């Protein structure tokens, strides 16, 4: 038996909750959130550190506190959700197969679907670090789960590979729990995480950040006994003779996050090779009409505040789609592709399909000072912003108004950056 539902949201983390509330506020009542974990909130539940909510609530919250702001609304609005529920299949005609202990395996046919499936961490295998395969190697997020959710200590002397925010946060967390963090190695010449986290998570505890360094060998038969690190050249290749052995029982990997898009793939949704997420328009609609995507499943955000903001767009768009019976208002239709020029790694969205205000998020491909970022049609500047400093770790945004979009005559605009490369 296939049940019908107006809107199914896959994922009950910050993106899914925010999208659900937004869809509700835009008139949709028949909503169902499917969440695979035992609580709503997704990864926020284990992110017990603060730094969430500055933009959204103008105060500094921890992950669980930020999550609760949304969970409370979900409860108050009585938006239905199912926990411990795994979606196992998803087709482009919006039939969802899921499984949980109460319902067994069940199918739902939805009018619209929002993919808010989050992201996963890049594991060791993807790095091809030579050496043995002992225990004691964790992705930073797994270690975070062990410590903050389970109350288990992964180890006591630690090397961290990668200086993404989770890696930095875990350096502090493990130090506070009595472990010795011996070094954080970053293959790039600049930190992967935010400057603030380098300051308060590493510098506060005198943990060395070794830029342009990587782990070149793993040692230990049963449990990790140490790692060999080395300097890398500008092509990220280890420089012979710079090897250094560090004894440790734990290696944390904070080497990148990958949008979780197995369901999107199974539905044949077009993916962006740079972000790993779906290609979407400014309404966060994917290449399949009626399927929307938001949050880290779309592209990896550095701040949850932006996840919530983006999910609101997806929630509203899905609501509009349902209310209009799948028809988009024709007179506003546009088909503009956003191309990335020099200095820009990616933009989300990559398409503009209607004359409505659009927020274009982007990341740069390097560190630049006195940067001017412009959206151009040919030589004409459609919109631009200036930034004293832009870094790849921090997402930036340009707003396009409906009027800006109306002025675009052709089908292509280009995102360009001019500035001093650091």
């Amino acid at each position, binding site marked *: 038996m296939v049940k019908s539902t107006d809107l199914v949201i896959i994922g009950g983390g910050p993106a899914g909750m925010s999208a659900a509330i937004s869809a509700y506020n835009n008139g949709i009542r028949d909503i169902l959130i499917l969440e695979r974990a035992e609580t709503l909130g997704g990864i926020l539940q284990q992110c017990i550190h603060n730094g969430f909510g500055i933009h959204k609530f103008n105060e500094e919250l921890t992950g669980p506190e930020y999550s609760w702001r949304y969970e409370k609304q979900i409860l108050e609005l009585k938006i239905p959700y199912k926990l411990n529920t*795994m979606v196992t299949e998803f087709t482009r005609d919006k039939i969802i197969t899921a499984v949980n202990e109460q319902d067994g395996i069940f199918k739902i046919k939805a009018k619209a679907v929002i993919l808010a499936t989050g992201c996963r961490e890049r594991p060791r295998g993807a790095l091809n670090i030579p*050496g043995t395969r002992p225990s004691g190697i964790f992705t930073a997020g797994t270690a975070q789960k062990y410590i903050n959710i389970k*109350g288990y200590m992964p180890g006591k002397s630690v090397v961290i590979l990668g200086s993404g925010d989770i890696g930095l946060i875990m350096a502090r967390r493990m130090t506070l729990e009595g472990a010795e963090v011996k070094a954080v190695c970053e293959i790039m010449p600049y930190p992967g995480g935010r400057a603030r986290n380098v300051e308060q998570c590493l510098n506060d505890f005198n943990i060395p950040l070794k830029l342009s360094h990587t782990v070149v060998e793993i040692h230990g038969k*049963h449990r990790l006994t140490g790692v060999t690190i080395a300097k890398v050249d500008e092509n990220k290749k280890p420089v012979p003779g710079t090897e250094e052995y560090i004894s440790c029982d734990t290696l944390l990997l904070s080497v990148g996050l990958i949008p979780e898009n197995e369901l999107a793939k199974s539905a044949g949704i077009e993916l962006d090779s740079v972000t790993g997420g779906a290609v979407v328009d400014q309404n966060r609609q994917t290449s399949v009409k009626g399927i929307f995507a938001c949050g880290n499943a779309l592209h990896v955000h550095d701040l949850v505040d932006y996840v919530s903001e983006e999910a609101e767009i997806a929630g509203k768009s899905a609501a509009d789609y349902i209310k209009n019976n799948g028809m988009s208002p024709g007179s506003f239709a546009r088909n503009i592709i956003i191309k990335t020029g020099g200095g820009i790694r990616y933009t989300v969205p990559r398409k503009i399909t209607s004359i409505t205000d659009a927020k274009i998020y982007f990341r740069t491909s390097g560190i630049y000072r006195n940067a001017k970022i412009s959206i151009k049609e040919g030589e004409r500047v459609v919109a631009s912003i200036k930034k004293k400093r832009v870094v790849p770790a921090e997402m930036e945004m340009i707003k396009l108004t409906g009027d800006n979009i109306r002025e675009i005559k052709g089908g292509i605009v280009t995102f360009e950056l001019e500035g001093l490369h650091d």
Partner: protein
Amino acid sequence: MYDIVIIGAGIVGAMTARELSKYLLSVCILDKESDVAMGATKANSAIIHAGYDPKEGTLKARLNVLGSEMMPQIAEELGVRYINNGSLVIGFNDEDAEKIKTLYRRGIANGVKKLALLDKDELLNLESNISKNAVCALYAPTSGITCPYELAIAAIGNAMDNGVDLKLNFKVEEIKKNEDGYEVISSFESVKAKYIINAAGLFADDIAKMAGDTSFSIHPRKGEYLLLDKECGSLVSHTIFGTPTEKGKGILITPTVDGNLLLGPTSVDITDKTDTSTTFDGIETILSQVNKYVNSIPFNRVITSFSGLRAVGGTGDFIIKFSNDNFISVAGIESPGLSAAPAIARYVAGMLKETGIRLEKKKKFNPYRKSMHFFKNLSDEEKNRLIRENRKYARIVCRCEMVSEGEIIDAIRSNPKATNLDAVKRRTRSGMGRCQGGFCSPYILDILSEELKIPVEHITKSGGASNIIIGRTKGGEQW
């Protein structure tokens, strides 16, 4: 006192145990590791070779062809995945073409069925992603792929279900010969048996020495592999080899039964029998080789690398012999050992019979074992019926491979019982997907702890001192 003790729970020990479990005999398998299939069986190419490779007249040739023929039925009985995907040896020049013809003739002499020589067009027709530089190929339609550790686990599980005992963490330190048989001694315990079968893989020479046989030695040859994401598994459908060199069959490209793409192995003689580390050079060697055979391999989709050790006997053939009275050594089982294993088991049973042991068939022998992946193969209705009986089949623990808590508990409870994270992984595939256990290992740790009634900090990744966590946070002691 057992009738027979088998030392080594790799594929040879496993198949032998299962073969012997058909008879009214008391059998015990010993292994020094915390799980079965932890040596060469754990990490190899997983190919069931057709049998054109070994020299005519060798044991290798005979047992390979026979074993390979036996495999489909054994896999069926044991619920182990086996895919008859066929193999291709591809050649790029005249020299290769000659070698391929030699292989063809050898295969015919060995009794391999359906072998065919292909020209370029036929080759590209069969496998469109092969390099355009290839000029000819040997096609062996009877070749197949399986999962070697799954096969060994299932064979031992089935043997145990039919009465065989298994003792893990049993490292043989000494073997004493008494009037009525042998005493096999570890640092903790000893077992007695009338017959010993030495299937100790890389350590078969050490075990043989304990029984006074110093006639052979085994040295380790390392093979490194790269495993690519499932989305690459359909790049080729056959197992693709280059032409062989004196060092072996060279680097291959093959789909796995799980749908991944496997590249490797390298071939490097080493001295340490426990060194399964991967190396920078090994990874580079694979990357530089496979590009010659197949177009556009997506190397950015590597999900893991690993290495395995082949037990090389140095005689060019399998060494299957009496090392002492009623003491059979099965050694030097390098490639095609996996393919030959069922036939080796039967051969060993024949040797036992020659000694005068009574091989009387059990009436109640059950050749079947439930597949470790049975749940996945059910229809939704059947799954729901099982879920109503046991809700844990509806609780997905491993999200990448969709493994439920019910399946994980099955792996911990059924023979041979999984007692650590890697053992659960080999049985259920939990943790083998694209996140490599990041999401599920914290849950599986708790399930293992609860099922085995062992504190979480004592649960290991793969036995020994490979514990995963060191205790509770907050200094641990308050807990």
